[in-house]
């Protein structure tokens, strides 16, 4: 009986389909006689926009406080408590979103896609730490970034990594930054957010592999201090550039270095530059030759990088869902009849022709071709400049924080015996 009813209703549906699509009701709403009052759908409001501005103010206060504590007050303890606050507020309370690291992608997408406009709070989150770095060094990393802070809090017994390893792994953030901008600008994906290792910990909920990644980063971070910050963080690249030329910066000693060497092992990040050893400085002549060779090689690196980048554009573009679907349908036309493939079935039902899809995919792939050149060229330039930096010797007489790599965490200040 019921089955029959359903069949009837099904045919009824088909009959009425033309009606329904032209704006008619299949089953008109009844007129009730017993005074029935219709409830209204439940639609809870989103978090008020005012609260987003409150986040910006919290960030501003955290950055100012970190600058004050690192540069003026010289208090490691203060920075420690500030990082605890940042982990609690930006991490566990705000669930790690919104964050300055991810804001890179919003900015990239806003510039690439005219239809997308970022909210003003996102722009603040992107710009404020950069501006502060230009004046006070990487104070954002010191205490305001929840990702940095959670790693800073788990450092137990940091080991010193050899210089070559630091330099090689130090190239990864540049590659990550380039890829993130490329994927965001092409509207493909926000990889920084998707592969944020700590967001699962902040939210106490994530996919299994991301939880494993987050916990392994924290375990690794007990011995290799701040692994994400040093060898992955794409935003750190921007802050590093700013911090290298910052107006003020944390200093190990409050006045004059007495060369006591007490601070040498205090930095978990190997970010203290030692005084130049006159004996080790290679003779100027061979150094100049090396410098010239590396300088001439810069364009070679850029072009080679760009070439490799452009060659890999087909591979890189596979992450885009449109390109992926178009490729899949061309390579396996039989999938059109596969009822289990939701993507293909939805596409077939949408009435869009394969030609349109392939056309869209080609546009995106072309963007990836240009992006591949830029990305490869950028990475080539970074490698060339890193090499060039190896033969530049700056004369240093004291123990100083390396302005690019120093996170202004303030550990070294506690080791300095000079009082004022």
């Amino acid at each position, binding site marked *: 009986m019921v089955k029959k009813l359903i069949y009837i*209703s099904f045919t009824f549906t088909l009959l009425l389909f033309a009606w*329904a699509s032209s704006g008619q009701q299949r089953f008109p709403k009844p007129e009730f006689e017993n005074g*029935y009052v219709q409830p209204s759908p439940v639609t809870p409001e*989103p978090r008020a926009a005012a609260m987003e501005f409150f986040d910006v103010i919290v960030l501003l206060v955290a950055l100012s406080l970190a600058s004050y504590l690192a540069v003026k007050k010289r208090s490691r303890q203060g920075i420690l408590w500030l990082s605890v606050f940042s982990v609690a507020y930006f991490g566990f309370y705000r669930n790690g979103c919104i964050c300055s690291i991810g804001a890179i992608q919003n900015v990239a997408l806003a510039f690439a896609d005219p239809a997308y406009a970022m909210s003003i709070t996102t*722009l603040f989150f992107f710009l404020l730490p950069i501006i502060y770095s230009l004046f006070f060094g990487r104070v954002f990393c010191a205490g305001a970034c929840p990702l940095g802070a959670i790693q800073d809090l788990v450092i137990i017994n940091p080991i010193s990594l050899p210089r070559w390893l630091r330099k090689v792994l130090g190239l990864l953030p540049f590659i990550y930054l380039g890829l993130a901008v490329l994927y965001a600008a092409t509207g493909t994906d926000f990889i920084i*957010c998707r592969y944020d290792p700590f967001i699962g910990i902040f*939210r106490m*909920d994530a996919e299994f592999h991301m939880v494993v990644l987050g916990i392994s980063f924290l375990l690794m971070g007990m011995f290799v201090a701040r692994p994400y910050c040093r060898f992955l963080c794409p935003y750190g690249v921007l802050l590093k550039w700013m911090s290298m030329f910052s107006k003020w910066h944390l200093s190990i000693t409050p006045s004059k270095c007495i060369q006591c060497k007490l601070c040498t092992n205090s930095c978990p990040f190997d970010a203290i530059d030692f005084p130049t050893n006159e004996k080790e400085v290679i003779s100027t002549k061979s150094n100049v030759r090396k410098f010239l060779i590396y300088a001439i090689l810069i364009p070679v690196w850029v072009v080679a990088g760009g070439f490799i980048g452009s060659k890999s554009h087909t591979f890189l573009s596979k992450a885009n869902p449109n390109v992926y679907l178009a490729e899949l349908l061309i390579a396996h036309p039989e999938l059109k009849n596969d009822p289990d493939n939701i993507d293909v079935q939805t*596409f077939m039902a949408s009435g869009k022709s394969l030609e349109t899809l392939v056309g869209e995919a080609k546009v995106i792939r072309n963007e990836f071709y240009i992006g591949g050149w830029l990305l490869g060229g950028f990475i080539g330039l970074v490698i060339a400049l890193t090499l060039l930096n190896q033969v530049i010797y700056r004369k240093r007489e004291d123990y100083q924080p390396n302005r690019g790599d120093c996170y202004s965490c303030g550990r070294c200040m506690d080791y300095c015996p000079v009082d004022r």
Partner: protein
Amino acid sequence: MGKKAKNRREFIQSGMRMSLGLVVGGLGALSLKHVTKDEWVWQIDPFECTQCGRCATNCVMSPSAVKCIHAYDLCGYCNLCGGYFKPDANKLSTAAENQLCPTAAIQRRYIEKPYFEYVIDEDLCIGCAKCVKGCTSFGNGSLHLQVMHNICLNCNECSIARVCPSHAIKRVKAADAYIVKGDFSKGGKT
């Protein structure tokens, strides 16, 4: 000599600082063109949704922030509800075996002959879209999915949007955070 070298170093430092400052300032000024005062939130366009069921499994929240809501204006108050009953239901009763919803989140209540009201218990709904599919295929389409903003974390990039086959999830302004169906076609009033 030493003083001169120091002066040169300071000159390069401040020169670079100025140029970086200009770059950041310029970037900021250019970005102002691409900025809105509104906050953005994620929402499902119910007219694009194809009820694939991925909302239930791909949200970073578990259970998903996507839930079914009922646009009562569109409901036909049918006895044989395509969103409530399984297609092979034995009997049009509230017995669990007849219900389509895996969590029994839809409550059916008799109003007057032959009409029944269907209310969704949002706490039980997991956003699987089974009822939406039934209602859209056999009924008026008054049941449809929406992102619930008391649960949604407003991720920078919605992890459901990435896998949505019909691109139904889009950014909307926080002031109009819901797209509740108010008419039967997309062009109608909402």
